[in-house]
Protein backbone atom coordinates (compact mmCIF):
# COMPACT_ATOMS: atom_id res chain seq x y z
CA UNK A 1 0.00 0.00 0.00
CA UNK A 2 2.68 2.46 1.07
CA UNK A 3 4.71 1.44 -1.98
CA UNK A 4 1.77 2.27 -4.23
CA UNK A 5 1.29 5.74 -2.80
CA UNK A 6 5.01 6.50 -2.76
CA UNK A 7 6.60 4.62 -5.67
CA UNK A 8 9.83 6.61 -5.23
CA UNK A 9 10.25 7.38 -1.54
CA UNK A 10 13.62 9.08 -2.04
CA UNK A 11 12.23 11.41 -4.67
CA UNK A 12 9.27 12.24 -2.45
CA UNK A 13 11.43 13.08 0.54
CA UNK A 14 13.75 15.28 -1.52
CA UNK A 15 10.81 17.08 -3.13
CA UNK A 16 9.29 17.77 0.29
CA UNK A 17 12.58 19.12 1.64
CA UNK A 18 13.15 21.25 -1.46
CA UNK A 19 9.64 22.70 -1.13
CA UNK A 20 10.28 23.72 2.48
CA UNK A 21 13.67 25.18 1.54
CA UNK A 22 12.13 27.11 -1.36
CA UNK A 23 9.69 28.74 1.02
CA UNK A 24 12.30 29.04 3.77
CA UNK A 25 9.73 27.97 6.36
CA UNK A 26 8.62 25.06 8.51
CA UNK A 27 5.00 26.19 8.95
CA UNK A 28 2.31 23.53 9.08
CA UNK A 29 0.53 24.72 5.91
CA UNK A 30 3.62 24.43 3.79
CA UNK A 31 4.42 21.02 5.25
CA UNK A 32 1.02 19.76 4.11
CA UNK A 33 1.28 21.42 0.69
CA UNK A 34 4.79 20.02 0.29
CA UNK A 35 3.57 16.55 1.24
CA UNK A 36 0.85 16.78 -1.42
CA UNK A 37 3.38 17.81 -4.07
CA UNK A 38 5.77 15.08 -2.91
CA UNK A 39 2.98 12.55 -3.39
CA UNK A 40 1.70 13.67 -6.77
CA UNK A 41 4.81 14.74 -8.67
CA UNK A 42 6.34 11.21 -8.54
CA UNK A 43 3.05 9.85 -9.95
CA UNK A 44 3.06 12.20 -12.89
CA UNK A 45 6.75 11.74 -13.63
CA UNK A 46 6.85 7.99 -13.07
CA UNK A 47 7.57 7.33 -16.76
CA UNK A 48 10.96 9.04 -16.31
CA UNK A 49 11.88 6.69 -13.48
CA UNK A 50 11.62 3.28 -15.02
CA UNK A 51 14.33 1.79 -12.88
CA UNK A 52 14.24 1.91 -9.15
CA UNK A 53 16.94 4.04 -7.61
CA UNK A 54 18.38 2.19 -4.68
CA UNK A 55 21.01 3.52 -2.34
CA UNK A 56 22.75 0.61 -0.70
CA UNK A 57 25.10 2.52 1.55
CA UNK A 58 23.76 5.96 2.51
CA UNK A 59 26.81 6.81 4.63
CA UNK A 60 29.08 6.15 1.72
CA UNK A 61 27.02 8.66 -0.26
CA UNK A 62 27.69 11.31 2.38
CA UNK A 63 31.39 10.46 2.25
CA UNK A 64 31.27 10.62 -1.55
CA UNK A 65 29.79 14.12 -1.45
CA UNK A 66 32.55 15.19 0.94
CA UNK A 67 35.22 13.75 -1.35
CA UNK A 68 33.69 15.55 -4.36
CA UNK A 69 33.61 18.90 -2.55
CA UNK A 70 37.22 18.46 -1.48
CA UNK A 71 38.26 17.51 -5.02
CA UNK A 72 36.42 20.56 -6.41
CA UNK A 73 38.33 22.83 -4.02
CA UNK A 74 41.70 21.32 -4.91
CA UNK A 75 41.01 21.24 -8.64
CA UNK A 76 39.84 24.88 -8.58
CA UNK A 77 43.17 26.03 -7.19
CA UNK A 78 45.13 23.82 -9.60
CA UNK A 79 43.21 25.03 -12.66
CA UNK A 80 43.38 28.67 -11.55
CA UNK A 81 47.16 28.33 -11.34
CA UNK A 82 47.28 26.70 -14.77
CA UNK A 83 45.22 29.47 -16.39
CA UNK A 84 47.18 32.27 -14.73
CA UNK A 85 50.71 31.00 -15.12
CA UNK A 86 51.25 28.31 -17.72
CA UNK A 87 48.69 28.98 -20.36
CA UNK A 88 51.09 28.37 -23.27
CA UNK A 89 52.28 25.04 -21.91
CA UNK A 90 48.86 23.51 -21.35
CA UNK A 91 48.44 20.02 -22.76
CA UNK A 92 44.73 19.56 -23.45
CA UNK A 93 43.37 16.27 -24.66
CA UNK A 94 40.61 13.71 -24.83
CA UNK A 95 40.55 10.67 -22.58
CA UNK A 96 38.51 7.49 -22.53
CA UNK A 97 37.34 6.35 -19.14
CA UNK A 98 36.19 2.71 -19.26
CA UNK A 99 33.06 2.21 -17.17
CA UNK A 100 32.24 -0.56 -14.75
CA UNK A 101 29.00 1.05 -13.63
CA UNK A 102 25.74 -0.34 -14.95
CA UNK A 103 22.98 1.76 -13.43
CA UNK A 104 22.07 4.84 -15.53
CA UNK A 105 21.74 7.00 -12.40
CA UNK A 106 25.26 6.07 -11.33
CA UNK A 107 26.68 6.77 -14.80
CA UNK A 108 24.88 10.11 -14.88
CA UNK A 109 26.23 11.03 -11.46
CA UNK A 110 29.75 10.06 -12.47
CA UNK A 111 29.53 12.15 -15.66
CA UNK A 112 28.20 15.13 -13.69
CA UNK A 113 30.89 14.78 -11.04
CA UNK A 114 33.60 14.75 -13.70
CA UNK A 115 32.16 17.89 -15.29
CA UNK A 116 31.79 19.64 -11.93
CA UNK A 117 35.43 19.08 -11.06
CA UNK A 118 37.34 21.89 -12.77
CA UNK A 119 39.75 20.73 -15.43
CA UNK A 120 37.65 17.92 -16.85
CA UNK A 121 34.39 17.93 -18.82
CA UNK A 122 32.41 14.87 -19.86
CA UNK A 123 31.85 15.06 -23.62
CA UNK A 124 30.16 11.84 -24.58
CA UNK A 125 28.97 8.43 -23.47
CA UNK A 126 29.88 5.56 -25.80
CA UNK A 127 26.93 3.96 -27.49
CA UNK A 128 27.39 0.67 -25.67
CA UNK A 129 27.58 2.62 -22.39
CA UNK A 130 30.97 1.10 -21.65
CA UNK A 131 33.11 4.24 -21.64
CA UNK A 132 33.01 7.98 -21.20
CA UNK A 133 34.84 10.44 -23.42
CA UNK A 134 36.17 13.32 -21.36
CA UNK A 135 38.13 16.43 -22.27
CA UNK A 136 40.86 17.50 -19.86
CA UNK A 137 42.39 20.96 -19.79
CA UNK A 138 45.84 19.75 -18.85
CA UNK A 139 47.08 16.17 -18.95
CA UNK A 140 50.36 15.30 -17.29
CA UNK A 141 49.84 11.58 -17.09
CA UNK A 142 46.83 10.27 -18.96
CA UNK A 143 46.73 6.91 -17.19
CA UNK A 144 47.01 8.47 -13.75
CA UNK A 145 44.15 10.89 -14.51
CA UNK A 146 41.89 8.04 -15.59
CA UNK A 147 42.93 5.92 -12.58
CA UNK A 148 42.18 8.86 -10.25
CA UNK A 149 38.68 9.25 -11.66
CA UNK A 150 38.02 5.51 -11.37
CA UNK A 151 39.30 5.24 -7.82
CA UNK A 152 37.88 8.39 -6.34
CA UNK A 153 34.53 8.65 -8.06
CA UNK A 154 33.58 5.41 -9.77
CA UNK A 155 34.43 3.01 -6.97
CA UNK A 156 32.20 4.60 -4.31
CA UNK A 157 29.39 5.12 -6.85
CA UNK A 158 29.56 1.46 -7.77
CA UNK A 159 29.20 0.44 -4.14
CA UNK A 160 26.34 2.84 -3.57
CA UNK A 161 24.19 2.18 -6.62
CA UNK A 162 25.10 -1.10 -8.30
Amino acid at each position, binding site marked *: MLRKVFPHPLLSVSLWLIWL*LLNNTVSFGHMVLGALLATFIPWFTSSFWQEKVQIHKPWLLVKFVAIVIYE*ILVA*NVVVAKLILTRQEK*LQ*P*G*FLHVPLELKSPVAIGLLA*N*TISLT*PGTVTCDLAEDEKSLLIHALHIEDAEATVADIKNQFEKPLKEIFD
Partner: protein
Amino acid sequence: MLDIILSILIMLGGFFTLVGSLGLFKLPDFYMRLHGPTKASTLGVGAVLIASAVYFSTSTDEVSLHEVLVTLFLFITAPVSAHLMAKAALHIRVRQDKRTLNKSDQ
Protein backbone atom coordinates in the same frame (compact mmCIF):
# COMPACT_ATOMS: atom_id res chain seq x y z
CA MET B 1 35.49 39.43 12.90
CA LEU B 2 32.56 38.00 11.00
CA ASP B 3 32.79 40.90 8.56
CA ILE B 4 36.37 40.03 7.77
CA ILE B 5 35.59 36.36 7.12
CA LEU B 6 32.65 37.32 4.90
CA SER B 7 34.76 39.81 2.96
CA ILE B 8 37.43 37.19 2.41
CA LEU B 9 34.80 34.74 1.13
CA ILE B 10 33.37 37.31 -1.28
CA MET B 11 36.82 38.32 -2.52
CA LEU B 12 37.67 34.65 -3.01
CA GLY B 13 34.47 34.11 -4.99
CA GLY B 14 35.21 37.16 -7.09
CA PHE B 15 38.77 36.02 -7.72
CA PHE B 16 37.79 32.55 -8.94
CA THR B 17 35.02 33.95 -11.10
CA LEU B 18 37.54 36.38 -12.62
CA VAL B 19 40.01 33.59 -13.35
CA GLY B 20 37.20 31.54 -14.89
CA SER B 21 36.29 34.46 -17.17
CA LEU B 22 39.95 35.02 -18.04
CA GLY B 23 40.17 31.38 -19.06
CA LEU B 24 37.00 31.74 -21.12
CA PHE B 25 38.53 34.75 -22.88
CA LYS B 26 42.12 33.64 -23.43
CA LEU B 27 42.20 29.88 -23.98
CA PRO B 28 42.74 28.81 -27.60
CA ASP B 29 39.88 26.45 -28.49
CA PHE B 30 36.25 25.82 -27.61
CA TYR B 31 36.81 22.72 -25.50
CA MET B 32 39.43 24.40 -23.34
CA ARG B 33 37.31 27.51 -22.94
CA LEU B 34 34.51 25.32 -21.62
CA HIS B 35 36.59 24.73 -18.49
CA GLY B 36 36.39 28.38 -17.49
CA PRO B 37 32.67 28.58 -16.62
CA THR B 38 32.57 25.20 -14.81
CA LYS B 39 35.21 26.61 -12.50
CA ALA B 40 33.53 29.91 -11.90
CA SER B 41 30.24 28.22 -11.14
CA THR B 42 31.62 25.91 -8.47
CA LEU B 43 34.05 27.60 -6.11
CA GLY B 44 33.33 31.16 -7.29
CA VAL B 45 29.60 31.08 -6.79
CA GLY B 46 29.97 28.66 -3.87
CA ALA B 47 32.04 31.10 -1.81
CA VAL B 48 29.66 34.00 -2.50
CA LEU B 49 26.66 31.83 -1.56
CA ILE B 50 28.21 30.74 1.73
CA ALA B 51 28.91 34.38 2.53
CA SER B 52 25.32 35.29 1.68
CA ALA B 53 23.86 32.49 3.80
CA VAL B 54 25.97 33.44 6.82
CA TYR B 55 25.31 37.17 6.43
CA PHE B 56 21.53 36.92 6.15
CA SER B 57 21.31 34.28 8.89
CA THR B 58 23.18 36.47 11.35
CA SER B 59 21.87 39.92 10.41
CA THR B 60 18.18 38.92 10.38
CA ASP B 61 16.20 36.73 12.76
CA GLU B 62 15.51 34.04 10.20
CA VAL B 63 17.90 31.38 9.06
CA SER B 64 18.52 31.85 5.34
CA LEU B 65 18.64 28.55 3.50
CA HIS B 66 17.79 29.64 -0.02
CA GLU B 67 21.48 29.52 -0.81
CA VAL B 68 21.53 25.77 -0.24
CA LEU B 69 18.95 25.42 -2.99
CA VAL B 70 20.81 27.74 -5.34
CA THR B 71 23.92 25.60 -4.86
CA LEU B 72 21.93 22.43 -5.41
CA PHE B 73 20.32 23.65 -8.64
CA LEU B 74 23.61 25.06 -9.89
CA PHE B 75 25.45 21.83 -9.22
CA ILE B 76 22.78 19.92 -11.12
CA THR B 77 22.49 22.24 -14.13
CA ALA B 78 26.08 23.45 -14.68
CA PRO B 79 27.57 20.07 -15.61
CA VAL B 80 24.58 19.19 -17.78
CA SER B 81 24.93 22.36 -19.85
CA ALA B 82 28.71 21.89 -20.11
CA HIS B 83 28.16 18.31 -21.25
CA LEU B 84 25.58 19.31 -23.85
CA MET B 85 27.83 22.05 -25.28
CA ALA B 86 30.77 19.65 -25.48
CA LYS B 87 28.63 17.02 -27.14
CA ALA B 88 27.24 19.50 -29.64
CA ALA B 89 30.76 20.76 -30.38
CA LEU B 90 31.94 17.21 -31.08
CA HIS B 91 28.93 16.65 -33.28
CA ILE B 92 29.51 19.68 -35.50
CA ARG B 93 33.29 19.16 -35.33
CA VAL B 94 34.44 22.39 -33.80
CA ARG B 95 38.15 23.03 -34.42
CA GLN B 96 40.43 21.43 -31.84
CA ASP B 97 43.65 23.09 -30.80
CA LYS B 98 46.70 21.51 -32.44
CA ARG B 99 48.21 20.58 -29.07
CA THR B 100 45.23 18.39 -28.23
CA LEU B 101 46.10 14.79 -27.33
CA ASN B 102 44.03 11.95 -28.84
CA LYS B 103 42.10 14.32 -31.07
CA SER B 104 38.58 13.12 -31.38
CA ASP B 105 38.14 12.05 -35.04
CA GLN B 106 37.43 15.08 -37.16
